[in-house]
């Protein structure tokens, strides 16, 4: 799918010019990810397509196990410029500069990475009114096996709330596309940061499997 295809279909279901498209007899696994209905897509397909629909091309990240498939598929898609950074605040600086230069971005990180961001959120993203879009894979709850992770997780929402930053905890696949799509658009139109927290209820999370 090209960027032009995506931009031509702002309604959230970009269609591909495929001869079989009219036939709805394909099983879910035979369809391309953009042909699937919201409930047939995986959460990471939802994120990738929402980024494309909203012309978000720059995706710096600090990796997390749960984000592995999303990161791989973003790397595999030439639409995106994506790369790892050494720290999450570095990634926030990069997407902030890029947005001021006319290129939209989003940052992927884990809970513990979010915990390093209070300074940059309060001194760059918020006061300069930058539509910083963050996807935070949530560690530290619903089966956490590392006590430190569970403590770090508890700092996240108080920091977001103390800055009155928009944030949503995404737990259900059936409402995920709605949340992602609307939140991205709200961040951009209101020039305000947003954090989308990816709960283990949505992603499966990371479990102790030694």
């Amino acid at each position, binding site marked *: 799918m090209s960027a032009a295809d995506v931009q031509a279909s702002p309604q959230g279901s970009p269609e591909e010019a495929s001869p079989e498209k009219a036939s709805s007899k394909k099983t879910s696994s035979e369809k391309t990810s953009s042909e699937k209905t919201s409930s047939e897509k995986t959460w990471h397909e939802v994120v990738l397509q929402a980024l494309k629909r909203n012309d978000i091309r*720059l995706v*710096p990240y600090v990796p997390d196990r749960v984000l592995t498939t999303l990161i791989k598929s973003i790397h595999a898609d030439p639409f995106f*410029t994506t*790369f*790892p*950074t*050494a*720290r999450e*605040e*570095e*990634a*926030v*600086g*990069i*997407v*902030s*500069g*890029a*947005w*001021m*230069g*006319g*290129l939209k*971005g989003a940052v992927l990180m884990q809970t513990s990475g979010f915990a390093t961001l209070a*300074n*940059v959120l*309060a*001194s*760059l993203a918020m*006061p*300069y*009114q*930058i539509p910083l879009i963050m996807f935070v894979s949530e560690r530290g709850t619903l089966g956490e096996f590392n006590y430190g992770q569970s403590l770090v997780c508890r700092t996240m929402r108080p920091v977001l709330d103390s800055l009155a930053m928009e944030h949503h905890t995404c737990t259900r696949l059936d409402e995920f596309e709605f949340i992602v799509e609307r939140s991205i658009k709200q961040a951009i139109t209101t020039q305000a940061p947003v954090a989308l927290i990816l709960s283990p209820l949505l992603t499966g999370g990371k479990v102790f499997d030694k």
Partner: protein
Amino acid sequence: MNTATDIPARNTKIMNRFDLTSRLVAKLKNQEAVIGGIGNTNFDLWAAGHRPQNFYMLGSMGLAFPIALGVALAQPRRRVFALEGDGSLLMQMGCLSTIATLKPENLTMIVMDNGVYQITGAQPTPAATVSDIVAIAVGCGLANSAWAADEDDFERLIEQSLSAFGPTLIGVRIDDKPGVGATRRDPVQIRERFMLGLGVRQAF
């Protein structure tokens, strides 16, 4: 073991931040973007004469180079300069590796190195007597990294960076003088004017 006298940086002339910033700004003829780091680096950028393509940081210490990288990626045909202090760079050294990997040709980074946190009372940085920031940059993969020997050499390195096939980092040894001006601390206006200056926004 390295001692202070072994470090090439100490053989370079000690210059002045405002003077060097003014020399840089005087060379800008093509609406080049300039990102001024926290504190004195952006105070002197402001004092050198406001331009619509200047961005002034009021916090987020260490992010001048990452912000400049973002601008450089968004507008590959525009030259982007970033001014950063040595103490600030120490906070975000990992960005040198990111920039070395992405290799933006249109990015010129300038490190103003006085070995102290001038603005908080001139306390020495942990790197002050032992670390060579240009050597660190080279080690991170930024091959076009050099200390400026004096003001003429600084101007020559700036010119050279304009046609470089990759990002450039210029280290300058500076004195411990405070910044000359004081940026007007209006973040929304700073950001909006910068976006106008970059042609991303139109005035209404």
